[in-house]
């Protein structure tokens, strides 16, 4: 993942982007509820759900490459878990059912995230009275994931440019040293953020 990749699409403009974040979040949840909990093998529900998603993808002008890339990243987990079901009676049918369900739900969340800025989704949860500690933590987390990701990349580049020996043990040590230093830097950054927030009248 690159900095800026995420939330890049949600800044676009389309009829789907203009819908209210609350409406989109609620409908994504209802969509997932319907697809997951409908008993039996409701082919028509899946067909309708698929058509709905396709409509949202087209109307929201979400590039297929984005959906494919993310789905390829996430689908193996679903297939692996569903694969265990292959080893039981009527396993193939169950396998198919679970893969269809999880793919539809996964795409629904991807569509939501690609058409709604994360801050709007967070604001919706704040309105639902989710405890403010959690929403503040989530807001800070989303804001700083990419800052820390970049910091980690810089640290690794610095290391790569100075290390010429390879080896698995070395890779583990340097990766965990990088993680350790990243934590230390995160706490120091948190301290600076706290001062900046206080200076601007937070709490």
């Amino acid at each position, binding site marked *: 993942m690159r900095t800026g990749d995420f939330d890049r699409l949600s800044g676009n403009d389309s009829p789907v982007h203009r819908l209210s974040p609350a409406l989109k979040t609620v409908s994504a949840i209802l969509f997932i509820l319907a697809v997951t909990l409908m008993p039996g093998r409701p082919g028509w529900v899946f067909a309708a759900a698929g058509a709905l998603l396709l409509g949202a993808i087209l109307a929201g002008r979400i590039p297929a490459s984005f959906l494919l890339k993310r789905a390829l990243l996430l689908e193996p987990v679903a297939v692996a*878990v569903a694969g265990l079901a292959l080893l*039981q009676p009527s396993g193939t*049918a169950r396998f198919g059912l679970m893969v269809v369900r999880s793919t539809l739900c996964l795409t629904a969340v991807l569509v939501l995230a690609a058409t709604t800025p994360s801050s709007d989704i967070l604001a919706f949860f704040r309105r639902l009275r989710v405890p403010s500690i959690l929403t503040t933590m989530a807001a800070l987390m989303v804001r700083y994931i990419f800052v820390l990701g970049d910091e980690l990349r810089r640290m690794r580049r610095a290391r790569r440019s100075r290390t010429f020996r390879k080896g698995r043990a070395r890779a583990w040590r340097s990766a965990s040293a990088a993680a350790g230093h990243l934590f230390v830097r995160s706490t120091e950054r948190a301290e600076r953020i706290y001062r900046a927030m206080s200076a601007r009248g937070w709490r």
Partner: protein
Amino acid sequence: MHIPDGFLDAKTIAVASVLSAAGIGRALHNVRRTLTPRKVPLMGLASAFLFVAQMINFPVLGGTSGHLLGAVLAAILLGPDEAVLVMTVVLAVQAFLFADGGVLALGANLFNMAIVAPLAGYAVFRLASRPARTEAGRLAAVAVAAWSSAVLAAIGCAGELSLSGAVPWTLGFPAMTGIHMLIGLGEALITVLVLAAIIEARPDILPGLVVGRERAEETRPLKDVLIYGAVVVAGAVVFVLPLSSRLPDGLEATAARLGFASRAAAPPAVPAPLAGYRVPGVGSLSLATALAAGLGAILVFAVSFAIARRRSSRPKGGIPGNA
């Protein structure tokens, strides 16, 4: 271990969500009691750190790589209550913004990775580090705790999947637990190496691990232990006990009584290779897995203690870094 949507049924989601809400509620209560404004940005940044740390790949055999779960790491860096909240935020953001783990399955994922993993992991750490008088001993305790957290979360995951009828216990338990007994080794090693790197850089951050500087409040109030314990035990009773003792009869009887047996009895599209899921030796496989998990915990402790002792006896500056 993030369960996607489409695998769990309504009752499993409901039970897991209620248990997670209870655990998170208690953690919120505890954190609020000692919360200084200064700590809020730290916990937000810790969530971002954990998310990023989970993306660092550690090369395993031939091209595959493992990564961190981080529940025990968070519990030791920030405290168990804080770890519950940090894991909660990480999992929720992953579910809603990155589609990693299901939105409805979030309750179950929270139970496994935000409740069981940090709380049970931390309990294991406290127990195992009690006799430890050296830094090596404590790092060994960390290793066992991290390993246990991965294995216990996987057992919870297997229980939820089988209670939902997605994957039968006799398959899911050995498969999930077996795989995570290996993944747990990576978790243990990474957690210890990261903590060792932090101790080297800033020993003041980790007073609980550096010998000679005890954490101020070493004992937790009994009420906390009881409430957290009740949540975890309730999960074990609902997700694991009935399945390990009475499957498949128990679930099938319930299915018949509640009238959703017809749903499960759909004709197979392809004749099943293992009819009636009585794979020869699978019953004993569950038992063997449970035994192996117990032995594994002891083995991990012994090996990690030996390694940690060797490591800490080396001169300072053994860990590369400071890039």
